[in-house]
């Protein structure tokens, strides 16, 4: 059975191992529908070109959601995330026949009162940081 991670087992400096997430065009379309975000730069090459982009790009919020998966799986409970923030620092182009790979890793950087841990995330695609200052405050159990 799933269980929320215990703060007793967490220390500053703990590394959450990197995971790779593959993003293809079908995922962008699916995300657009589920998130009700129909901006055409996420599915139409002509629209992306008109906006000066190299190709169709992933929704920033989809990339952030992938980063969130690392945190919720580590915490053992998606309800544990109390505060989740980031800056969008790079694009994730997704080719029609060339999926993108987003690599997410985490580090526990702080333990706060109330069984809370701060997790800082590195999120890269194509060797570039696409999220910066990605940070989650996670409430664990004692």
């Amino acid at each position, binding site marked *: 059975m799933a269980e929320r991670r215990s703060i007793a087992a967490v220390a500053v400096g703990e590394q959450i191992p990197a995971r790779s997430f593959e993003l293809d065009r079908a995922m962008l379309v699916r995300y657009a529908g589920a*998130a009700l975000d129909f901006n055409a730069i996420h599915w139409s090459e002509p629209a992306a070109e008109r906006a000066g982009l190299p190709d169709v790009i992933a929704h920033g*919020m*989809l990339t952030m959601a992938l980063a969130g998966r690392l945190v*919720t799986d580590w915490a053992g409970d*998606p*309800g544990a995330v*109390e505060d989740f923030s980031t800056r*969008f620092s790079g694009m994730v182009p997704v080719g029609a026949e060339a999926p993108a790979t987003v690599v997410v890793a985490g580090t526990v950087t702080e333990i706060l009162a109330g069984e809370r841990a701060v997790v800082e995330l590195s999120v890269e695609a194509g060797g570039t940081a696409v999220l910066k200052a990605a940070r989650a405050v996670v409430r664990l159990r004692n």
Partner: protein
Amino acid sequence: MSLNRATVGRAYDPGPPFDVSRQKIREFAAAIGDDAAIYADPELARSLGHRDVPAPPTFGSVISLQMGQGPRRDPELGLDYARVVHGEQRIEQARPIYAGDSLLGEVTIASIRDAGANELLEILCALSTEAGEPVCRVTSVLVSRGTAAGTADG
């Protein structure tokens, strides 16, 4: 043209309440590729102390995007959507968003500031239940490229 800073503090009509269903949560979890059982299993969710299945932590931004169209369409603000990119996002949860929630929003322009040649437009969407319980604060920063005062297009 630069953004009209007289709009800072302005509140916008968020539209109707957002009714969160188990189906919508399953659909959103699938769309982010997350097959964790808790998004589909109310009993499992209850065993972890939740009242129903929780939404993934970024789901508040979906609601915020729906409710936050007012500023994006306000002619007095003067946002040119062709220049906009998503700059920053923050989701603060007093508690998870659950299936069964009917959420009301309060949408305001929190700030507008320069960042080099760009302007940063900060939109706040505060979500609460109909009973007045605060649930989630979603802060979205949109970058208006090249519109800072004193720049070519400002």
